[in-house]
């Protein structure tokens, strides 16, 4: 259970986040939408512990957020595969890092096995020994997703992960992420500027205002899976959320 309490973030004179408060349930898939440049990425980075909040705090299961104690993963918008590692090397990297951070000393065989399983699951096993520069952009993001899931995180943050991909790959990966999430059931907070994507993926969509960002509204999305873009209730929700966001 993640709680964001009155989080504000200021960069110098610029107030980006203004007392943002919300919570995310265990295993929930929540999307965050908002106008361009409203601070969605900043919010996510605060939730990941990459930057400190100027005021307010983030609690994970009642404890203040700590990347060391809490198991957090992040899928970035830009390609984030380590270029000097193969696909399987990248996936193992999060396990290795976690193991080193916690001084756990996971055995190599253990890590190999877990990495192999997740690669199997996302369908990349035959590319295990490829380098990132040899695979497509969509596949790179799948590697990043596999890498994020393999550590069995308490919280998985995704910052517009399909933003740089073409439409067809997006559709494919949206289906994929749902499949993975339904199987593995981790808590996901997914930022997107595509309202369609938010309605397609989320159980709940939170809408932020423009700068400085506050929570504008939280819309539950109670449509059954698999969702259909042309379904009237789908398009209703879309319109509703679009109206909330509309700054033009």
């Amino acid at each position, binding site marked *: 259970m993640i709680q964001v309490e009155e989080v504000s973030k200021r960069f110098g004179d610029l107030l980006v986040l203004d007392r943002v408060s919300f919570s995310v349930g265990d295993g929930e898939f929540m999307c965050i939408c908002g106008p361009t440049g409203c601070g969605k990425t900043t919010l996510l980075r605060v939730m*990941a*512990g*990459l930057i400190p909040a100027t005021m307010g705090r983030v609690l994970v299961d009642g404890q203040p957020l700590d*990347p*060391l104690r809490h198991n*957090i*993963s*992040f899928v*970035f918008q*830009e*390609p*984030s595969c*380590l*270029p*000097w*590692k193969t696909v399987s090397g990248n996936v193992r*990297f*999060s396990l*290795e*890092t*976690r193991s*080193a*951070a*916690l001084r756990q000393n996971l055995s190599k065989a253990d890590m190999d096995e877990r990495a192999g399983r997740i690669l199997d699951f996302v369908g990349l096993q035959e590319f295990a020994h490829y*380098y*990132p*520069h040899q695979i497509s952009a969509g596949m790179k993001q799948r590697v990043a997703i596999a*890498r994020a899931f393999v*550590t069995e995180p308490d919280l998985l943050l995704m910052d517009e992960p399909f933003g740089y991909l073409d439409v067809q790959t997006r559709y494919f990966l949206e289906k994929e992420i749902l499949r993975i999430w339904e199987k593995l059931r981790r808590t996901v907070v997914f930022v997107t500027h595509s309202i369609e994507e938010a309605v397609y993926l989320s159980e709940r969509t939170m809408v932020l205002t423009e700068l400085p960002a506050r929570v504008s509204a939280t819309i539950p999305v109670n449509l059954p899976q698999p969702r259909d873009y042309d379904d009237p209730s789908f398009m209703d929700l879309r319109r509703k959320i679009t109206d909330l966001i509309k700054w033009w």
Partner: protein
Amino acid sequence: MKQRRWQDSILGLIVLLGFLAAWQLAAVVVRSPFLPGVTDTVGAFTDLALHGDLEGYSLLTHVAVSLTRIAAGFGLACLLGIPLGLLMGLYPSVYRSARTIVEPIRFIPPIAWIPIVIVVIAGFSRYLFIIWLGAFFPILISTLAGIPRVNPVHLDVARVHGAPRGYLIRRVVIPSVLPEIFAGMRVGLGVGWMCIVAAEMLGGENIGLGRLILKYAELFKLDYSVAGMVLIGLLGLLLNEAFIQAEKRFFRWRWEVTL
């Protein structure tokens, strides 16, 4: 693809032959004893290879001695340059304070050090120092300049999982910077190689490729000097190529390797 490589090779060969022809023509036209032509140089080179030089040292001895000097200077430059570069890159305050010394010294050419080196340093260390001077700065600068260029996303990937600073340096920063360090080493080796003649101007026994060139120049046998020059150039080229091949193998994950 293969056909293009053949075409490039043939084109390169034609250019080389053209240059040699122009050189020989120039030598014939000028007809000065001080401008050896291609045939003279080749003859001198063969003589050196077969009979050694006029003092009895074989060509192999000269090459081995020069290579040893370069290896020592270059090795020391890597040993000092890479850790210092990492330190200065990771801790900018160290760089800022060291800058006031490093920057001026960097621009003093190794040759300018010769008068002091003769007096202050003795023996083999003289060569070591001059070559080290040449090789050190490219390595240092490449290393420290590569660190800010580490992709912040890569660092974030590890940070999110709780990576401590040491882990970040070892597992993200260093692998990221390694290609740039290697490139710096290649440049450093090249500069160090070019310093060999300067270093060997210091005086000493007449062994070494630089000394070979100077020795024969003193005796007005410029065909031998040019043969020595060509040999130095070829060896430098080979070393550079070897480096590039090593880079290609170690850094398969990069999609371009620069010259």
